[in-house]
Every structure is written in C-alpha cells, then in structure tokens.
C-alpha cells in the first residue's frame, strides 16, 4: 500500500504513515468487531439459555445493532470519577487494558500468512502481551479508591498470575510438538484433515486442550472464574467505580481478550484456519494454484478461523450462564493443584509420545508396523492427502514435523560442534544422539 501511495507521488514518510495507520485501523476494526459480535452473542446466547428472546428489535430482526446501541448509551452516560480516586491512573487504566488486548491482535494470524506481524516467538509474544491486560485492571481497581475495587484488583492479580503458569505450559506442549513458536507455522502444520489437529495428535494433547480451556477462561476473567468483578460479592469488583466510556473500554477489552484466547486455542489445538476437511486444497485454492486462488483459499481459511474463535466464545458464554462462580481459594486450588500438575504430566507424556510415535495418533493407529519411520513415510509417499503447499513451504524452512525437525537441527548442530565439544560428548551423550537421529 505504501508503494502504491509513493507511486502517486506522495512523500515517502507520509505514505508509510498512512499505510501504517490504515493497517492499524483495520486491526482495530477487527478487535472492535470481535468485541461487538461477542457482546451480541452473549446477549442472545444468555437469553436462549434463560428462556428469553434477548434483543430483537434494534437493527432488524435479531437485534444486530444492539452492541452499537449499547455503546451509544454508555458514551452518553455521565463520566464519574470518585473523589477518592487517583485521577490519572483511574483515567488511563481502561486504555491500558484495551491497548494490551489490541496489541495481541498484532501477532494473531487469521489465515496462512495473514498476520500483521509475523513473529518467530509469536506464541510467546501473544501470551506475554495478553498478560499485560491485568495491569490495567489492577491499576483501575487500585485507583478507584474503593475497597471493593481494590479487592477486585487483588483477586485479578492473584488469579491471572497463577493461571499464566499452566497457560504457558499448555502452549509449550504445542511448541514441543511443532518445534516452532511461529503461530503461522503452527497453523500450517495442522493442515489437512481434522485428525491433523493437535487436539487429536495424541491423548495427552487432548487433555492439554481442556486444561487450556480452563486456563483461558480463567485468564480472561470469565465465569466461573470471574472473581475480579464478582458482582454478588464485590458489587462489581474493579469495575465498581467505572461508568460510561471508560467502562466500555474495559468491557471491550474483556470481549476482545475472549476472542484472542479462543483464537489462540483454535490455532494451537484446533487447526487454526484449516477446516476439518481440507476444502481449499481439494478445490485447488492454495497459493500454488495462483495468487487469486490462494487468496480465496485464505479467505475461506479466515472464515474458518473466525468461526472457530466464535465457537470458543460461545462455549465460554455457555459456561458463564450455566455455572456458579468459584471461590478465590478454589480458583487458586484449581490452578495449582489440578491444572499445573496435569499439564506438567501431559508435557512429559507429549514428549515421550512425540519421541516414540512422532506421527501422531492416527499415524500410529494406521501404520503401527512402520514405526518409527511412519512420519517420514506418510509425508513422502502420500503427499496428496495433505495440501501440498503447506508441506512444501514448511519443508523449505526444515519444518515438516516437530520431532523430525528438532532431531535434524540437533543432529546437525551436534555434528558440526563435535570437535569442540568432543570431550563433553564422550561423557555419554553421543551414543544417544546418534541412535535417535538414525
């Protein structure tokens, strides 16, 4: 886009600035739309669960325009800042909250290559930035000058910091499987039929997915883990003193972060933009078949990804309107006594599994005889069952299968470093390495 502007004799700096602003605007629009649709979904789903109709009139039959109407109403409300509040922090807290969530969208890929910033440490970056959201909540809770808000902030701090551990471990499990933290590559490695999804890779990842769900719900402060704003205990927790526009920002941040954790879950475990059936590659809509077809395929993939993310959000909404809230000690217990040990055990399990059965469950079931070379044979002899493009692209960066890749990199590294670390290797590691790599 910048090139286009330069070509019509716009100054260089202006062209780049405009292009950057447009892209930011696009991302912001995605973030806001996901929040708006999330709010609408919440209203409709909760209404259905409770035998109500929910919004029916605003903007046509299904109340489509209810979120903007809500927003308009809230913007028109009086903006109240309590006397006891720390004015500056009180004002900036909602924006911190929203900006942190918005920054996550920078690294969230929507389809193969459709990501604002493709980071090598994408998964890690996503977790790190999503964790910043609590900062806004804590500041808001503290700055409100209300005891209830302070309680909300303290709960948020305790809860989210605890849940970052199992959440991070869940991501590590997938990183071990794929051998990369690049989210686009993680998505591409799950291309093909649904049994290539990581959730179906082996029984351990299946368990890890549910741990991830728990932690994702907890880290985005949704019921039954919505303790920071527990309305029946803390009035409204950290939101107690907020009203109007600032409240909207917190609210949007919450829904956008729901979208993010659902999207991350879809990327890590549910195939990302790869549908259960590889329609795009069956129809010949891969980047290999031409730019236009590749673009259409990517568009389909994006729809797929967004559908998965909203399915995740619907699940969270469903949970919220069904379950009572946990108590703070139970929330922490769930994290430290259940989530962390389970995911640690699963981590070890996944390591062992991908060591012995690198191809995943389906490969292990269908080709038990060819162990342990099944992964190699599958990719080499039957490339047609997978979208070619994905394989070829990942091949170019030496990434076909997590284990194979890791093994190869390590092996090469080891080989090349042998003269230097010979003495080290002679202490007993060498044999292992050579055996496993052959």
């Amino acid at each position, binding site marked *: 886009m910048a090139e286009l502007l330069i070509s019509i004799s716009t100054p260089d700096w202006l062209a780049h600035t405009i292009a950057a602003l447009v892209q930011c605007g696009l991302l912001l629009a995605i973030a806001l739309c996901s929040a708006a649709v999330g709010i609408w979904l919440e209203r409709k789903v*909760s209404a259905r669960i409770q*035998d109500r109709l929910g919004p029916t009139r605003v903007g046509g039959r299904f109340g489509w325009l209810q979120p903007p109407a809500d927003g308009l109403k809230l913007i028109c409300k009086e903006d109240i800042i309590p006397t006891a509040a720390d004015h500056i922090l009180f004002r900036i807290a909602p924006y911190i909250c929203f900006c942190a969530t918005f920054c996550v969208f920078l690294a969230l890929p929507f389809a193969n290559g459709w990501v604002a910033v493709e980071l090598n440490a994408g998964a890690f970056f996503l977790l790190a930035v999503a964790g910043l959201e609590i900062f806004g909540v804590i500041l808001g809770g503290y700055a409100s000058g209300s005891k*209830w808000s302070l*309680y909300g902030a303290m709960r948020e701090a305790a809860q989210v910091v605890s849940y970052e551990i199992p959440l991070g471990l869940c991501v590590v499990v997938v990183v071990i499987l794929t051998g990369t933290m690049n989210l686009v590559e993680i998505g591409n490695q799950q291309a093909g039929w649904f049994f290539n999804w990581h959730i179906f890779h082996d029984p351990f990842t299946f368990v890890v997915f549910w741990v991830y769900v728990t932690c994702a719900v907890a880290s985005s402060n949704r019921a039954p883990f919505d303790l920071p704003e527990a309305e029946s205990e803390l009035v409204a927790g950290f939101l107690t003193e907020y009203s109007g526009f600032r409240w909207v920002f917190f609210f949007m941040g919450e829904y956008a972060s729901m979208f993010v954790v659902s999207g991350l879950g879809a990327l890590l475990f549910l195939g990302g933009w790869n549908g259960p059936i590889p329609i795009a590659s069956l129809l010949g809509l891969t980047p290999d078949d031409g730019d236009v077809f590749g673009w259409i395929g990517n568009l389909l993939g994006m729809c797929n990804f967004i559908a998965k993310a909203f399915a995740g959000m619907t699940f969270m909404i469903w949970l919220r309107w069904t379950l009572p*809230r946990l108590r703070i000690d139970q929330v922490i217990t769930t994290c430290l006594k259940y989530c962390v040990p389970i995911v640690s055990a699963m981590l070890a399990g996944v390591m062992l599994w991908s060591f012995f059965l690198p191809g995943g469950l389906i490969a292990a079931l269908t080709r038990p005889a060819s162990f342990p070379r099944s992964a190699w044979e599958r990719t080499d002899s039957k490339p047609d069952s997978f979208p070619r493009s994905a394989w070829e692209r990942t091949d170019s960066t030496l990434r076909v299968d997590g284990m194979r890749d890791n093994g190869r990199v390590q092996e090469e590294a080891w080989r090349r470093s042998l003269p230097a670390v010979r003495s080290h290797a002679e202490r007993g590691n060498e044999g292992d390495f050579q055996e496993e790599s052959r």
Partner: protein
Amino acid sequence: MQAERAQSDTVEFDVRTDEMLINMGPQHPSTHGVLRVVLRTDGEVVSEVTPHIGYLHRSAEKIAEKLTVRQYLPYTDRLDYLAAMNMNLGWALTVEKLLGQRVSEKTRHLRVIVAELNRIASHLVAAGCFGLDLGSFTPFMWTFREREKIVDLFEEICGARLTYSYLLPGGVTAGPPDGWFGRCEAFLDQFDPVIDELHALLTSNAIFIKRTADIGVLPPEMAIDYGCTGPVLRASGVDWDLRRDGEPICTEMYDGYTWQVIAPTGGRYPDDHPYPPVPPEAVVGDSWHRFYVRMLEVVQSMYLVRQGIEKYSAADGELDKPIKIKEKLPKGEAYLETEAPKGQMGFMIVGDGSAVPWRVRIRSSSFCNISALPEICRGVLIADMSAILASLDIVLGEIDR
C-alpha cells in the same frame, strides 16, 4: 467444626496484612435489599460480621395501633413481600384466635392452597437468589419464570401480583374464578419436571456443592438458641414445623392432609425421592442443606396444593365472608405463630374492646435467622458471606418492619 471455629479466639493467617472494615450494603447486590453488614476482613478472610438493620423500618407495629384489624391487613403484605399470602394468613389466624372464630371447610382448604402456592413461590425466589449470589444468573431466571406463573394465578384470584391482601380475617375477599383450580393443577403438572432441572442446575452442581457444603454451619443448639426457625432450623436437623407442631389453630388447618416435614434428623432426609442425594461434603446445618430443605419443601407444598384442590371441591358449604371493617375486638390478647416460608411469623394483638388494637407486636422469622449471621460467618471468606446470606433467605421488609 464451625463451632470450633467460632470458639477459638484467634484466627490465624499465613500472610498477615492490615485489617479492613468494609460496608457490605446497604447498596450491595447480594444483601437482598437494604441490609448493611459491616465486615472486618483480613485479606479475603472475614473475621467479624456485624449486621446493621433498620433501613426499611416503616413503623409497621405502630401503624397497627391506628387501624382496625381488617384495615391493617394490606400492611402485612409488606412484611414478607415475597410471601404476602402467608403474612395475610398469619394475621388472619391471629385475629380469628382473638375473636374466637372458626372458618368453614372450603375457606380452610382455599387458605391451604394459596398459602402453599405462595410458599412455593417464596422458596423459588430463595433458590433463584441463591444461584444469583453464587454468580449463576440462569437459575434466577428459571425460578422467576415459574414464580411468574404462580403470581399469574394469584392475580386471577385477587387482582394483585405482589401484595395480595387476600386471606382476610374471617374469610377471603372473593372466591376463585371459574377454572382456577384446573389452571392450578396444570401449573403443578408442568412444574414437576422443572424441579428436576433446578436440581440439575444447582443442587448437584459440583461448584455449587463446593461453594455451599460445610459453609456457614449452624449447629442445632445454636439454631434454637438464636430462635432460628423455618427451613433454617430444619436444615440444622431440628424436626420442627408449626403446621404440624404448632397451636391447634394452625394444625387444624392441615387436618386430613398427608405430607412430611423436611428435616435431616440424624443426618437423613425422611423420604425416598427422585432428587439428587446429599453429597458427602455436606454437613447438616450448612448452606447446602438450607437450600436443599427448601427445594424438598417445594415438593411437599405441591402435594399439599393438590390435596387442597381435591378437598376443596369435595367440601360442602360456602366460602366465609371476612369480618366487618370495624369489627370490635374483645378485651384481651392473642399471640400466634404460623409457619411462613421463611420461618415462624408471629403476631400479637392486644385488644381493648374497640375496633383498633391497643398494641400489636410482630415476631419476624428473618430477624431471628439473621441474628445468627455473626456467629456462623466468623472466619469465612468474603465470597462465603453472600452464600451464607443467601442461604438464610432473609427479607428486609420483615426484619425492619
């Protein structure tokens, strides 16, 4: 265990921080009105609880000294506004006791029907609010949906949806309209499966059990000491119900009815029923049992309503007309406690020969139930506070009078 907790004079903490005094209420979502509870907290742990009441005080007793007993009836609606029929009934029975009147069979059965229907409605509100206070909104909507049907029925017989003023001393304002009993039965028929849904949503829900089992345990002795009554008392294992154990004027109303008093005497509930069993974590007298007792009482009330409908149509005679507006009261006094949904509701009327009582005193069940709050809330977490408060099922209109 809870008693132990209460007796130990210190509460220990791993990480000790500053104590904080917090006003829970009078504007707080889970204090069920304008109750104000002052919490002394250390972190999330509540070390001391002091309820402050009186925000809804309307001089209900004093007003009664200016009005005739029939004129006063609408004021009883405003005591426990979630069970106005039972308040009416308590007042009516007390006045009848003072006047020495007895009502006809038909009136008696009609009273049983509406009183028990209102008990169902009140318990539904209690169950729904319990869910709400634990952070689950859906049970509230579901119970209110059912309560709404009961309220519709009441609207048909008396025109009001909240403050009925229907069961007057001496009789009722008017008989039920045609087909009303049929609609009652239709409601009960469709309500039967809904109870299972409510049990599925709350009673057997793992989180619900974790939040309520062994929380706010009220031992039977303490319950009796504090004058707790109703489901709160019965959930502590005391088998006591004025509909069965009360004064003759109360028990006569239920002559010929078969039903059970729900109380976990000896840790066991009286009857086999299709509802979820008691979870192993639950301790008799805890919040879970208070909820469960109400849920089971709903079923008993349904039996009573069905029997009442049968007996009403079989009964001879007419419905009684209420007493005159300016009916003279005899010299003397009458005190009567009746079993309202939230506990024993007592009215005392002192007559001096005129139509206006010389003195009226109201004994409210919620008032006594909430007085146990500081005892059972010592050392719980803030989140448990709302659970315990919800399990006591208070109504501020009745506490503050």
